C-alpha cells in the first residue's frame, strides 16, 4: 500500500510547547524557548539530564495518498571527544495524513533527555522507507543545539 509522501517545512527544537487555549487538534500551540544555544547551571557536571525537550515539525503532504508515516529521532553529539558519536535513538509517534488535513503540525516531547557532555548536538528526524532489501531510516530534517556551561 502506498504511503503518503511529504516534505518537512520546519523542524525546531525548543524547551516547551504550550496550548493557546483548550487542547485539541485545531488549537494552535506556542513554541517556547526556541534558541540555538542553551546553558547548564554553573558547576553542573556531565552527564546532564533534563526534564524535557520538544521537537516541533510542520509537514506538508505532497501526494494525494492518505495514511500514516513513522518517525524516529537520533541524537548525535557532534563535539564528542574523538569525533561525532551517536548518543541515542527514540521512536516518535506515528503521524496521520488525511485529505482533509494535508498539513500536519506535530510536537513531540522527549522526556527526560540525557546529554553526555557539553558541545553541539544534532537531532536527526528520520522516517522509515521501504527498500528492496528491507526498511531503512531516511533523514528528513536536522536541527542543531549547542549546550554550554554558564560562566
Amino acid at each position: 500500500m502506498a504511503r503518503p509522501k511529504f516534505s518537512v517545512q520546519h523542524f525546531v527544537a525548543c524547551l516547551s510547547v504550550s496550548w493557546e487555549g483548550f487542547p485539541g487538534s485545531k488549537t494552535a500551540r506556542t513554541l517556547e524557548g526556541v534558541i540555538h544555544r542553551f546553558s547548564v547551571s554553573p558547576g553542573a557536571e556531565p552527564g546532564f539530564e533534563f526534564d524535557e525537550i520538544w521537537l516541533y515539525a510542520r509537514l506538508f503532504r505532497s501526494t494525494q495518498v492518505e495514511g500514516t508515516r513513522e518517525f524516529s529521532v537520533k541524537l548525535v553529539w557532534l563535539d564528542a571527544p574523538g569525533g561525532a558519536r551517536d548518543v541515542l535513538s527514540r521512536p516518535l509517534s506515528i503521524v496521520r495524513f488525511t485529505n482533509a488535513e494535508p498539513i500536519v503540525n506535530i510536537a513531540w516531547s522527549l522526556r527526560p533527555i540525557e546529554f553526555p557532555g557539553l558541545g553541539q548536538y544534532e537531532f536527526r528526524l528520520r522516517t522509515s522507507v521501504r527498500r528492496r532489501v528491507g526498511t531503512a531510516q531516511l533523514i528528513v530534517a536536522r536541527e542543531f543545539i549547542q549546550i554550554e556551561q554558564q560562566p
Partner: protein
Amino acid sequence: MKRPNKNGKRVVPQPGGESFQIGEAGLPIYHMPMPPVKSRGQLIPLGEWQIGEAGPPMTPDEYKAYCEREGILDPDRQLIPSPEELAKLPLSARVAFARRCAARIAPLAGVATPQELNPQAAALFLLAASTVQTPLRRMLRCIRRDFDRLLHLARKQKWTDDTPVSSDVFGPMWPKDLVPTWAREIQQPPVNPV
C-alpha cells in the same frame, strides 16, 4: 520524500485543513555508554535574538527606485540590455562591454567583425546561430550576465569614465555546457617532430 526547494521547486501546501498532533517519544535506545547522571534540571536558553522590523510599505515606483539604489536586479529585466541601461555604465565600461559583445560573435562573423558591437547586433548573430543544444535564451543570458557584472562592479568599485576596464572582469565567454560548436577553439594536433 520531497525536500523543500528540491531542484529549485517550491513546495506549496495542499489546500485543506491542518491538524496539530502531539506525541511522546518512545524509550531511548542508547548507542554509546552514557556517563552517570550528575546534574539534573532545566536547560537555560542562552544567546541573543535579533529583532527585525519590516520597512514602510512602498509603491511600485518607490520599490523600483529602491532596487536601483540598492543594486537589486529586476527578475523580469530584458535579456538584452537597453540603450537606457547601457547609459548607466561609465564610458570605459561601455566600451569594454561593446568589445565583449564583438568578441562573443567574432567566430560567427569572421574577419568582418567590428572592434565594438552593441548588444542588439550581437543578439541578432546569436539568433541566427542558436540550436537546440545552445538555445537562444541561454546564449542571450550570457550577454545579460556580462552587463550585470559590469554594472555591479561599477557600482561597488565606484568606477568613473576613466577607470580602465580589463576584459578579465568578465570571466569565461560561455558556460562549460553551452559553448557553441562555432565558438570552440579548433585544437590543432601537436606537430610530430619525427
